[in-house]
């Protein structure tokens, strides 16, 4: 495993761990998702640079566009849950369990 590969893998896994185990605020979950997507962005861009596949050079931008869409949807949902559930604690999202 090259150092580059190690670094983006670690970044992704740290983001995933944060999303999985740090369940206090919705905002921190969204930030962890963004961190995961940025690790993927780094991975894709460095793959393009390393292998010099010019066909693939648009892919990191596509990924970034989609992750921006995801982030905006996440923030919209943050506002919506804030209006329906009060403060944005993830523990407050519990009315569907029974």
């Amino acid at each position, binding site marked *: 495993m090259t150092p580059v590969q190690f670094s983006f893998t670690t970044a992704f896994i740290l983001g995933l761990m944060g999303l999985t185990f740090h369940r206090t605020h919705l905002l921190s979950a969204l930030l962890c998702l963004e961190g995961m997507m940025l690790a993927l962005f780094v991975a894709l861009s460095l*793959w393009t640079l390393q292998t010099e596949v010019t066909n693939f050079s648009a892919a990191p931008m596509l990924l970034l566009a989609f992750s921006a869409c995801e982030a905006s*949807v996440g923030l919209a949902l943050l506002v*919506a*849950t804030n209006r329906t559930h009060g403060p944005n604690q993830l523990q407050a*999202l519990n009315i*569907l369990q029974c």
Partner: protein
Amino acid sequence: MSPLVLVVLLSSLGLGTAMTFASSHWLLAWMGLEINTLAILPLMAQQNHPRAMEATTKYFLIQATAAAMILFASTTNAWASGQWDITYPSHPVTATITMAALAMKIGLAPTHFWLPEVLQGVSLTTGLILSTWQKLAPFALILQVANYTPPYMLTALALCSTLVGGWGGLNQTQLRKILAYSSIAHLGWMILVAQMAPQLTLIALITYIVMTTAAFLTLNNMDATKTATLASSWTKSPTLTAMACLVLLSLGGLPPLTGFLPKWLILQEVTNQGFIPTATVMALSALLSLYFYLRLTYAMSLTLFPHTFNSVTPWRMTAKRPTLLLSTTIIMTTCLLPLTPSALTLLI
């Protein structure tokens, strides 16, 4: 929701699934999955209600994480092998990560906890889309990845799903939660043969979609989301009540109905391959699911809840809802078993 927005959203749903179907490149498959998720979210959140918002948030978090994991696995694979093809044999570790993410996307058992809660929060129509159309794109990927995943993982997912689907539904009175657990159990049956006989997975998926559509449309026609509502459904439409019992038993997999077809073929295949204990556990866990379908049937046909009925003859009024799809799927749900030889000839 304005018709224009609805058209855009529904066609994006179709576009996402079609992209995933048509792509041979992991990035495009991932984009299809993302478009699918982003297009269903406004449909889920269209009623501004706490339950709908909560369901949408949970669905978004799960699907975004799973999609990111799929892309992470394929990127790692590309770093190792330089290939982005979906059909290219991938490393067992990345194939395992991909399969875990896909299982999370469709709601297979160790990662199923979101499915009942999300279905409980949305309307029956959106629930229908969630539990049928949204399964297609991940299944297209599962069928292509299944060859490279460790077989034990698929068997473990399948056994876990059928058992959890059976146990979880036992204590529920909410119909959407029962349908969610039934969906988990059916997905377990499908994933069991994804490696041994992908054609059988396809047959099981098709019959599952037909049966679930019939069940959701029936409940939608009755306006029923609780078991107690089912008990008064005979006043609205006696014929539909009788057929709804058959639809539920077909979901449970009783012999003269369509639901028996996939279970029969899958059990036969698993037994032929020599996995007798697996086949036994699967067959026994189908009994757990059958129990709660039978309980619904019982509530619908044999009990009279102590309700006050304002009138017992609403069935005389003409129904205004379109029932073409409902009647078609009900007929397919109840009468397709004789077509087993044709299905085998066409797909195997």
